[in-house]
């Protein structure tokens, strides 16, 4: 398949459609508007449903309904809109429904601005909504990866019956890079996928089974029953933590004197700085969590080489992933942090200067 030059927002929409998503509900917000606009164009062409909801609150509840009906469904928004969706996301997690949510993050708090940010890391990985639950959180760093993560997200959501969040940002949404797509899933394949949910989802009682009664629900007033349900969910999360950690290592070797940790957009910029430092004969490695929940603690720990004097975390926030890195490093090296906030993205030159100061 040929490469197409596309914005991240458009690429993830196209990829979701190709991965069998035929239901999409959302509300416009910058900088993810190209995503909803792309879906408005493409969904009618493939017989899918595009619906611009009256609000993010309505959109996520439409997702709840569609996911409860066992279909591949997606919504997307940007930071303030994702905050509005949190109640619904908690319901989806509590009811153990598969759904995909895309957050094209922008500067906050409040209405903030519309520039790229990573300030929703806590919200994405530590809860966001109320109650004990987890989202699987994928953190792309290129347009290609953003697109690839659409099908990955649906597969994970189906496999674990859990909402999956793709944590992108304004830069990934707005930038264009060449992207290659997987083939469009056929209707037969989509129908086949849907069958894995027919034992529990809202669906017609085709066999006229007298016992057919499926409930989509997150309410359980009996504490002992709710406790059992939550603990079962946590058993599931333990399996996810064991099997689903993903990370990339870049220039990691025993020569490293500094080990960087960065995800998403920030990691791209750190890579540029590392390339420049290489020319100066300075050895710096990078661990990039590809998924930020479950967090790749083991990979970060393993990348700390014998000469590493310092672990340096770079984020477009005030240090939200820093806590996870500290858990991973576990006192083996000092952990330093530098971040930019308010929608300002650091430049390769700035990161280079920060790293040079470590030598």
């Amino acid at each position, binding site marked *: 398949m040929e490469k197409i030059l596309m914005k991240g927002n458009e690429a993830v929409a196209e990829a979701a459609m190709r991965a069998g998503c035929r239901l999409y509900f959302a509300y416009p917000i910058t900088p993810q508007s190209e995503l909803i606009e792309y879906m*408005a164009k493409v969904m009618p062409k493939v017989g899918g449903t595009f619906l*611009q909801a009256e*609000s993010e609150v309505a959109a996520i509840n439409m997702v709840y309904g569609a996911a409860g009906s066992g279909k591949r469904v997606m919504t997307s928004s940007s930071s303030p809109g994702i905050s509005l969706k949190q109640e619904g996301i908690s319901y989806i997690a509590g009811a153990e429904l598969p759904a995909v949510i895309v957050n094209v993050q922008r500067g906050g708090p409040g209405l903030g601005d519309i520039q790229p940010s990573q300030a929703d890391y806590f919200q994405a990985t530590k809860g966001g909504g109320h109650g004990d639950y987890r989202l699987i959180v994928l953190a792309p760093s290129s347009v290609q990866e953003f697109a690839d993560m659409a099908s990955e997200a649906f597969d994970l959501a189906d496999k674990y019956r859990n909402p999956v969040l793709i944590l992108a940002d304004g830069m990934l949404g707005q930038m264009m890079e060449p992207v290659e797509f997987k083939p469009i899933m056929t209707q037969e394949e989509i129908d086949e996928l849907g069958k894995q949910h027919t034992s529990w989802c809202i669906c017609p009682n085709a066999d006229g089974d007298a016992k057919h009664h499926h409930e989509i629900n997150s309410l359980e007033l009996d504490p002992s029953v709710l406790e059992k349900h939550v603990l079962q969910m946590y058993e599931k999360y333990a399996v996810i933590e064991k099997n689903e950690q993903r990370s990339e290592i870049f220039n990691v070797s025993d020569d490293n004197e500094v080990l960087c940790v960065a995800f998403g957009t920030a990691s791209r910029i750190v890579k540029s700085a590392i390339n420049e430092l290489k020319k100066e004969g300075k050895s710096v490695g990078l661990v990039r969590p590809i998924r930020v929940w479950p967090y790749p603690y083991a990979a970060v720990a393993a990348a700390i080489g014998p000469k590493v004097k310092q672990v340096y975390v770079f984020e477009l926030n005030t240090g939200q992933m820093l806590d996870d890195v500290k858990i991973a490093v576990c006192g083996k090296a000092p952990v330093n942090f530098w971040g930019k906030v308010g929608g300002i993205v650091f430049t390769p030159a700035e990161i280079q200067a920060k790293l040079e100061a470590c030598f």
Partner: protein
Amino acid sequence: MEVIAKRPETLTKTPFTYCPGCLHGVAHRLIAEAIEEAGLINQMAGVAPVGCSVFAYKFFNFDMAQAAHGRAPAVATGMKRARPDMHVFTYQGDGDLAAIGTAEIVHAANRGEKMSVFFVNNAIYGMTGGQMAPTTLPNMKTTTSPYGRNVDDIGYPIRVCELLDTLVAPYYIERVSLLSPADIIKAKKSVSKVIQYNKENRGFTFIEFVSTCPTNWGIDPVKSRDWAKENMLPFFKPGLFRDKGAEEVKS
């Protein structure tokens, strides 16, 4: 020589961030002038929405709050209840007021909150780049109704004045146009009346402005007014729906 028309003191010196020919500026001026003329500059507070007019708090030269999307009537309710001696209004676009904020506007109106709501209807989402609004006309193409608004799928545009007119509590409801100098002069009278009612704490007052979006409609500012006259006014008919003040005078 005497200055007979100029920028009112109730507007700051900050230039509007709207696109060339966007009529938000006209609505701003009418409200600002009416507040100045009513002598309310020190007792008035406004609430800015999310959307193109999100920066309205920078343009009005009195206290302003900026609300989360659609929640301006709730924020204004809180302000008015906390400080009954203040006079409050909200300024909202069609996405903010008639989509995500439908619940807030209906319930603020239904409670008869003593506030004014200025609602600008241009049938599109401007700030985010031309998506379909709850007031987008049938068959009208936008970036999220690329094949035209299909009323069988997404429903008809919402007529907010008519909707609010079903409630008992509202004190004043009117739809005006900003599409010609004559319409603007007429609209000014309505705005002044509403601000006067607001000053007297009469009740919930509501004005809808039929406006344009030259940028997202892709029509130049002058022609976009003609387009709106031809296409919007038949569906969103200007007129007075409710004026309890006039009824009181009669009886």
